[in-house]
C-alpha cells in the first residue's frame, strides 16, 4: 500500500552547496538573460535595418502598345528584378536610405498632375499629364542605369523620346539648355523638410543631349505605371549619364540659354558636375568609378565609358575636356 517510488540515483542528487544557492542561480540566470537582451536589443536598435516594405500592385500602363522585340537601343543583358528596381532607390525627397522611398512612397500623389513648359519656347503651356501622355505612343527601352555610387541595373522603361516633346513645343533658336524641376511639396515629398539638398531638385541637359534619341521621358517600367519611389508620374532617363541626372516627378520643363544650376552640382561642386557622363577614367573624389556592381551580381564588372553608349553619344562631346567637365 505504502510503496514509495524508488529513490533517485545518488548521482542525480543536487549537491548540497548548489542546492543552497539555487535562488542565487536563478537570479543570476535572469540577470544574465536580461543583460544579453539589453546589450543585444540596444545594439540592434542602433545598427539594425528595417525590413523592406510591401508595395501595392502597380496598374498596367493603359497607353502601352504591344511590347516589341528588342529595339536598336535596347540591351539584351539580364534585366534587374522588378523587386530590386522598385525597392533600392535614391530618391532623397522620400528618405535617405535606399529602402526608404518604397516605405514613404504613399505620400506622393501622382494624379492629378500638370507639367509647366516655359522659357524660350514657341508654345509655353501648363498641361495635364494624361493629355501629354496621349500625344505620344509609349515605347519600351531596356537601358543600363549606372548610379554614381558604383552600382548599376538593367531596367525596361516605358516612355517617349524627349526629342518628340521638344519638337512639339517648338523651342526658339536661342534655347541651348533644358531645365527640369521636381515637384516642391513637403507634404507629398517629406524629405524636402530636411536641407540635405537645395529643394526642389533641379536637373538639366544641353539641348543636343535632350534631343538625342536615347534620352527618354519615362512614365512606366516593366510595362506598369511608374511606381512613386521610381519618380512617378514622369521622370527623365539619360542612360549614358549617372543616375542622378534622371530627375524624378517632373513638374517643370524650362528652355533656357544658360546652363541650369543642378542640385548635386550645387551641393558638392567638386564631386558632381553638370555633365555627369559615366566615365571610368574620372573617379569620384572619394571612390573609384572604374568598376561597378550590377545589382544581383556578386562580382564587380568594369564600368564602360558613357555606360556603354559611347558609339551613340561620344560625338556630342567632341573637343570637350571630359576630365574637367565631369
Amino acid at each position, binding site marked *: 500500500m505504502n510503496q514509495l517510488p524508488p529513490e533517485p540515483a545518488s548521482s542525480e542528487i543536487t549537491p548540497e552547496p548548489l542546492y543552497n544557492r539555487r535562488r542565487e542561480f536563478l537570479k543570476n540566470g535572469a540577470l*544574465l538573460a536580461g*543583460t*544579453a537582451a539589453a*546589450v543585444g536589443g540596444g545594439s540592434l536598435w542602433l545598427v539594425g*535595418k528595417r525590413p523592406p516594405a510591401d508595395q501595392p500592385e502597380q496598374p498596367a500602363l493603359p497607353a502601352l502598345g504591344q511590347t516589341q522585340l528588342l529595339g536598336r537601343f535596347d540591351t539584351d543583358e539580364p534585366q534587374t528584378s522588378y523587386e530590386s528596381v522598385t525597392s533600392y532607390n535614391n530618391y532623397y525627397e522620400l528618405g*535617405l536610405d535606399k529602402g526608404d522611398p518604397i516605405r514613404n512612397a504613399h505620400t506622393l500623389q501622382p494624379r492629378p498632375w500638370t507639367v509647366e513648359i516655359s522659357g524660350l519656347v514657341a508654345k509655353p503651356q501648363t498641361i495635364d499629364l494624361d493629355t501629354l501622355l496621349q500625344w505620344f505612343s509609349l515605347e519600351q527601352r531596356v537601358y543600363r542605369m549606372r548610379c554614381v555610387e558604383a*552600382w548599376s541595373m538593367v531596367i525596361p522603361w516605358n516612355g517617349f523620346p524627349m526629342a518628340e516633346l521638344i519638337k512639339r513645343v517648338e523651342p526658339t533658336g536661342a534655347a541651348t539648355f533644358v531645365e527640369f524641376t521636381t515637384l516642391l511639396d513637403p507634404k507629398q515629398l517629406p524629405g524636402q523638410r530636411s536641407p540635405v539638398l537645395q529643394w526642389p531638385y533641379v536637373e538639366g541637359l544641353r539641348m543636343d543631349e535632350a534631343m538625342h534619341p536615347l534620352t527618354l521621358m519615362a512614365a512606366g517600367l516593366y510595362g506598369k505605371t511608374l511606381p512613386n519611389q521610381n519618380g512617378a508620374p514622369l521622370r527623365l532617363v539619360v542612360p549614358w549619364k549617372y543616375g542622378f541626372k534622371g530627375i524624378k516627378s517632373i513638374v517643370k520643363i524650362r528652355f533656357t540659354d544658360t546652363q541650369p544650376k543642378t542640385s548635386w552640382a550645387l551641393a558638392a561642386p567638386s564631386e558632381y558636375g553638370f555633365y555627369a557622363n559615366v566615365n571610368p577614367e574620372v573617379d569620384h573624389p572619394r571612390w*573609384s568609378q572604374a568598376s561597378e556592381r550590377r545589382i544581383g551580381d556578386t*562580382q564587380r564588372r568594369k564600368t564602360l565609358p558613357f555606360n556603354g553608349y559611347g558609339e551613340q553619344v561620344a560625338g556630342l562631346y567632341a573637343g570637350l575636356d571630359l576630365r574637367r567637365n565631369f
Partner: protein
Amino acid sequence: MAATPPRTTAQPRRRSPYPWLQPGVFIGSLAPLLSLLWQWYEGMLGANPIAQAQNQLGLTAIVFLMAALACTPARLMFGWTWTARIRREVGLFAFFYAMIHFLVYAFLDLGFDWETLLEDIAKRPFITVGFVALLLLAPLALTSTNGWVRRLGFRRWQGLHRLVYLAGALAVVHFTWRVKVDTSQPLTYAAVLAVLLGVRVAFWLWRRHTR
C-alpha cells in the same frame, strides 16, 4: 574547542559580484552578427546585400567602440565600477566587428583584388583613415590580456591603449567622409565621441586643479 573546518585544497576563488555581467554582454554583443547572418540568409538585406552588410558592420564597430570609450566616463561621472569589468570585452567586440567590416570589403566587395585594395587604401582618404583606425585597434586587441598588462607595466600599457582615442576619432572621420551628403548620423557619433573625450579632459583638469 572545535577545530577549524578543513580547508579545501584549492584557494577560495574570489567570486565576482556580478557573475552574469560578462557572459551576458558577450551573448548580447553577438546579436548584430547573428541578425546580419540571418538577414543575409533570408534575403532581407535588400538589392545590394554586400553594401548593406558593409554598412551595418561598420556602424556596429563604431557603436561598440563608443561603448568601450564610455566605460571610463561612466565611472567618473556616476561612480559606476561595473563598467570597468566589461570594457575589455566591449573593446574586443569593436575590433571584431571592424575586422569583419574590413574583410567583407576586401573579399566580398573587391573580390580578392589586392591591387584595387591597396590603391583604395592609398588613394581614397576615407578608406585610408578607416584602415588606419583598424590598424590602431589591432595592437590594442593583441595586448588586451592581463599578461600583457604585466609584461608592459601598467603605465606603458595604459599609454599604448590611449591609441583608442585616435582610433575612435578616425573611425568617425571615416564614417563622415563616406556618406554622400547627409552627415547627420556620423556627426551624431562625432558629438558622442566629443562628449566621451571631453569628460575625460574635464576630470583631468579638475583633478589637477584640486590636487
